C-alpha cells in the first residue's frame, strides 16, 4: 500500500509553499468521523482509475478568506466566486500532486473538475469498504483539513 496520507500532506505543503505563501503545519491524519474541523466551505474533486474516490478541502470561513487573499495578493472580505474558485483550484493542485506521487507506484488516476459547496461541516461518504481520512492543517488564518475517501484497485 503506498503511503497515501504522506502523499496528501506533501502535496498540500508544496501547494502552500509555492503559490499561497502561508506557513502551514500538518497534524496526524484522522480516521474517525469526529475530525474537529468546523468547515463552511468544501471543494471536492473526483478521482478515477486505479484509485477511485473523492478528495475534499474543508475550510472554515476565516481560513477560506485568508487563503484566497494570500493566493490573490488582495484582501477578501466575504465568500464569493473568487473564494470558491481558489479553494477549488487548491483541491485540483493537491489532487494533481497525489496523482504524480501515485504514478511513481504505477497507480494511474484521472482527475475530474473541482466542485465547491457551501455548508456547515460537509463530509463525503461512500460505500462500505471505502478508506477515509482527513489530514488537519494549522495555519495563521485558521485550521483546515484535506479529506480523501478512496478505494484502491
Amino acid at each position: 500500500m503506498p503511503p497515501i496520507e504522506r502523499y496528501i500532506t506533501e502535496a498540500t505543503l508544496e501547494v502552500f509553499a509555492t503559490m499561497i505563501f502561508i506557513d502551514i503545519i500538518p497534524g496526524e491524519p484522522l480516521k474517525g468521523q469526529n475530525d474537529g474541523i468546523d468547515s463552511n466551505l468544501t471543494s471536492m474533486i473526483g478521482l478515477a482509475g486505479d484509485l477511485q474516490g473523492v478528495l475534499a478541502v474543508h475550510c472554515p470561513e476565516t481560513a477560506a478568506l485568508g487563503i484566497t487573499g494570500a493566493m490573490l495578493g488582495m484582501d477578501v472580505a466575504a465568500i464569493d466566486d473568487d473564494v470558491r474558485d481558489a479553494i477549488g483550484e487548491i483541491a485540483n493542485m493537491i489532487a494533481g500532486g497525489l496523482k504524480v506521487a501515485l504514478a511513481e507506484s504505477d497507480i494511474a488516476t484521472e482527475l475530474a473538475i473541482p466542485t465547491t459547496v457551501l455548508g456547515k461541516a460537509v463530509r463525503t461518504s461512500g460505500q462500505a469498504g471505502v478508506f477515509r481520512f482527513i489530514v488537519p492543517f494549522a495555519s495563521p488564518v485558521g485550521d483546515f483539513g484535506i479529506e480523501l475517501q478512496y478505494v484502491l484497485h
Partner: protein
Amino acid sequence: MAKNVLLVDDSSTMRKIVSRSLRQAGLDFGDIFEAGDGLEALDVLEKEAVDIVLSDINMPNMNGIEFLREKSGRDGIKDIPVFMISTETGDDIIGEAKSLGAVGALKKPFTPDKVNEVLGPFM
C-alpha cells in the same frame, strides 16, 4: 518586442495567479487576454494578435488537448506556440499535447522563477 499572451484556464483565480507570476518573473509581455476554455480560446485567437498561449488541460466544454487538436487545423492560428500549464504532468498526456503542437509544459503549483525558466526563452 513584448509578446501578447493568452491565458486559458477555467479557474479565474488561476488566470489571475498566472498573470501575476508573469509580472513577478520579470518577463517582457504586452497584452494579456483570457479565456475560460478551449472554445473561448479559439475565439480569442481568431480576433486578437496573440503571440503565446498558456493553457490548462483539464477544462469543461473543450479541454486543452481538444483545443490543440482544433487549433492545429486552422491555418491562421496553428503556428502560435502553446505552453500547457496543468497539474496533468504525465508523459502520456504531455506527450499527446506536444504531438499536437504544444512547445512546453509548466506544472502547477509553480513559482515565478519556474515561470521564468520555462517561458523566458520564448518571451
